């Protein structure tokens, strides 16, 4: 069994690099590239080990670090103190990028400290109950996943009467029709339960279409599906209402 660990410590390669610089208490204008490159690669190894998705961006910066390191290893021609000044420090651009990034990282932190609407500050008219007028008092909502829906679907299918002989039906059904019917039903009643939606559909095809319609509507974020507890009633509401 594989475990997926998600560590959101670093927002990107530059963030990791900044972290290493701070950790080692290094002067950002005089980065010991060899040391930092080594630690950087170690961290990438660790991230790989933890099964983290090491994005290409991390590798790009790794190659930049190694490039700078190799460049700094090359002897400067003539070796005169005067000559070296002509050659720009290979680290210069990286330092600039780091400083640039640091500014915006701080800006982001400052933005986050502002009083945010719907976190620190509220305006009138927020619906406290998320449109739960007709619901039991202590039903707290848990958004259900597709898996729960599939389970509920299976329960309904298996509770159906004995299979009848197939009839070639002339009535044409389309997914779009069923989607529209569900949306109309919801517009009228605000909330419908999963069972209610499937009740009036006795044949398998209708149930299938209903189920597909619900999945499609969820994908389009036009409806939201909630369940109060496991095996509880699954409720469907319009997304715009909440």
């Amino acid at each position, binding site marked *: 069994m594989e475990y997926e660990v998600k560590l*959101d410590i670093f*927002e*990107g*390669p*530059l*963030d990791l690099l900044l972290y290493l610089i701070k950790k080692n208490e290094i002067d950002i204008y005089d980065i010991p590239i060899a040391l930092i490159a080594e630690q950087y690669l170690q961290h990438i190894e660790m991230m790989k080990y933890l099964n983290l998705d090491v*994005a290409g*961006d991390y590798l790009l*910066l790794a190659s930049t670090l190694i490039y700078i390191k190799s460049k700094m290893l090359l002897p400067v021609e003539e070796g005169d103190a005067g000559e070296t000044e002509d050659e720009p420090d290979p680290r210069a*651009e990286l330092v*600039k*990028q780091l*400083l*640039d*990034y640091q*500014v*915006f*990282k*701080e*800006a*982001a*932190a*400052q*933005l*986050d400290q*502002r*009083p*945010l*609407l*719907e*976190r*620190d*500050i*509220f*305006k*009138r*008219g*927020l619906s*406290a109950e*998320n449109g739960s007028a007709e619901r039991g008092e202590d039903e*707290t*909502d848990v958004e259900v996943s597709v898996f729960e829906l599939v389970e509920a679907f299976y329960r309904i299918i298996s509770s159906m009467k004995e299979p009848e002989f197939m009839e070639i039906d002339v009535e044409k059904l389309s997914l779009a029709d069923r989607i529209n019917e569900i949306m109309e039903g919801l517009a009228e009643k605000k909330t419908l339960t999963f069972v209610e939606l499937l009740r009036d559909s006795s044949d398998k095809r209708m149930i299938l279409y209903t189920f597909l319609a619900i999945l499609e509507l969820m994908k389009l974020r036009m409806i939201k599906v909630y369940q109060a507890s496991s095996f509880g009633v699954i409720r469907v509401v319009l997304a715009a209402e909440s």
Partner: protein
Amino acid sequence: MEETKAIIEAIIFASESPLTVDKIREVLHEFDRSEISRLVQDLINEYEKRRGGFLLQEVAGGLHFRTRSDLSFWINKLMKAKQAMLTNAAMETLAVVAYKQPVVKSEIDRIRGVDVGSSLKGLLEKKLVRIMGRKDVPGKPIMYGTTKKFLEIFSLKDLSELPTLKEFKDLQDGTEALGTESRIPDNVEI
């Protein structure tokens, strides 16, 4: 005058989104801007002095009644389902857009050192960021900027109210020299 102030108070209260002074004038056209602004300021001060549960605040170029930020704990208790706030990554992207707008994606990528495609898309979906147009350089990349909703969410009067960062100004000159797109002259002959 007291009655006029009451009218202003009432229409701000009834408005769902921040109400501009111009909008107030549409209702009270016999008054001029400065008079209305003065009455509005009176109201702001009154609420400030009262120190009640909410204040009259200037956000996104308008006026709006909002709760006191130090009472958030109690309101959050009422709204059980808490809104998902922005991730750090999204916040960083938003900060770059806010301070550098209009800005193209490649510039945000460069500053953050990662591909910001997904966080930018999330911000567009949340309507915090909008497309401002296309940059007049080869490829015509899309330029992004922040929205009015951004100002509302972050309780800002306007963009100039964004906190200034000490190093920001000095560094801006630095980035100018570094920037690639912005250096391309408009009249490139092909």
